[in-house]
């Protein structure tokens, strides 16, 4: 991938900012998401809550299903590959997917290496729970970062932990003397030039979204106030009582995340939220996959 292509891929993420990216598993759901104001959709056969419930190995979705969703909407379509599964990524590139999510939600295909994302023309978004992970993924070619959260739980605590970890580490790096950065790069196991960028600019060199466990407009606004530039919502929408209404409310919450009056209005009468699973009740921490 040349530099120009990488810039264009980072640019697409910039256009998604302030938006909500919704998990969908059918063309009908994709249309509901688009009509509700989603900035993009993530096509996957089973949403994280169902993946968690079903267990077993979870893989890239059927290309036919992805094509169906591409045909149903005009907004960008993303899809997931297993961590390290570069052939699934080649297949998604052949489908001209708009963004590949190398995702811990699926079963990892490689316990050591991530996909070398610099070899692809299509952009990648990757999960990270701290600054070190984020910069390692960027070094591998990711052009967008998201928190890992804990997918499929409806519990926002992990996403909060990750975004707080990232922003507080960024502040620590910003306040360092330049000669301290060399040691910090060694400690964090990240390339020096990326760390220097963070030191000088006070943010990641790519767009950073929140993901995992967002179930209400208040959750989405919380992530935005904590510094996320947009929000992925997975199971939170189509596992709730009234998906269309909840989706619209979350879209508005991300735009007016700083206005409690508007947040109060849109939080009214949304029906049943997804029931969710408490962080301490789950056996499998997906966020621990792929460091």
């Amino acid at each position, binding site marked *: 991938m040349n530099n*120009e292509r990488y*810039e*264009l*891929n980072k*640019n*697409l993420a*910039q*256009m*998604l*900012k*302030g*938006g909500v990216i919704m998990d969908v598993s059918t063309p009908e759901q994709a249309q509901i998401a*688009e*009509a*509700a*104001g*989603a*900035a*993009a959709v993530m096509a996957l056969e089973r949403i994280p809550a169902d993946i968690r419930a079903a267990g077993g190995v979870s893989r890239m979705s059927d290309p036919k299903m992805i094509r169906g969703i*591409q045909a149903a909407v*005009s*907004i*960008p379509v993303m899809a997931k590959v297993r961590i390290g599964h570069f052939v699934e990524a080649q297949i998604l590139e052949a489908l*001209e*997917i*708009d*963004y590949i999510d190398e995702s811990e939600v699926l079963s990892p295909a490689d316990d050591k290496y991530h996909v070398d994302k610099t070899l692809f*023309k*299509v*952009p990648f978004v990757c999960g990270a729970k701290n600054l070190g992970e984020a910069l390692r993924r960027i070094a591998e070619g990711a052009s967008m970062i998201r928190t890992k959260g804990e997918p499929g739980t409806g519990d926002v605590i992990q996403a909060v932990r990750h975004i707080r970890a990232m922003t507080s580490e960024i502040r620590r790096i910003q306040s360092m003397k330049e000669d301290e950065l060399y040691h910090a790069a060694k400690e964090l196991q990240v390339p020096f030039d990326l760390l220097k960028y963070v030191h000088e600019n006070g943010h990641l060199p790519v767009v950073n979204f929140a993901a995992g466990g967002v179930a209400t407009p208040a959750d989405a606004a919380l992530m935005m106030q904590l510094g996320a530039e947009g929000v992925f919502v997975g199971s939170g929408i189509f596992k709730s009582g009234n998906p269309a209404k909840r989706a*619209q409310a979350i*879209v*508005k919450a*991300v*735009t*007016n995340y700083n*206005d409690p009056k*508007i947040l109060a209005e849109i939080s009214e009468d949304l029906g049943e939220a997804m029931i969710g699973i408490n962080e301490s009740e789950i056996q499998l921490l997906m966020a621990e996959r792929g460091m």
Partner: protein
Amino acid sequence: MRVGVLALQGGFIEHIRHLQTLGADTFEIRKRLDLAQPMDGLIIPGGESTTIGKLLNDLDLFDDLKKKIDSGLPVFGTCAGMILLAREIAGMETACFSSIDIVVKRNAYGRQLGSFFAEAEMTGIGLIPMTFIRAPYIESAGAGVEILSVVDRRIVAAREKNVLVTAFHPELTSDNQVHRYFVEDIILKQGKSNNFAPILN
């Protein structure tokens, strides 16, 4: 001079930074209350046109903004912003503001793999860098529309009176000349703003 930037979704920060390099004051428009302040110009940024279009209605901003644009408020739309300002969107029954007599085609270059970078001439400015992200182009333009740039035989920038549109994103490059054109050739010449001292660099 104060320029409002529609900040519902998309790349609005990038526009604000460019305007600030020119010495213009800016404010974000996210809700009705934001429209209470005086405004000499308006920018509609890139993002997803369906998302921004829906939020314009849901947040009750559409009518007030349309009135202002129709009565001559200088407005500049990039990419999704151009789609929202067009008289007609190919393949769709309804348009949004219908402020400039053009027909636009959405996602005209295909998906993200079709996104590209170019350098081309823009009338009144010269050679500038142009970033096209899942971009639209202008299929046809009415007689009153001035065509400002053509790339690969497609119209990618145009102006009609107070309305300026580009299919590309000047806000994603470090070049602020299109914003300077908007501020100096449209806002300053059409508007009544006189409290503006441009920063020359």
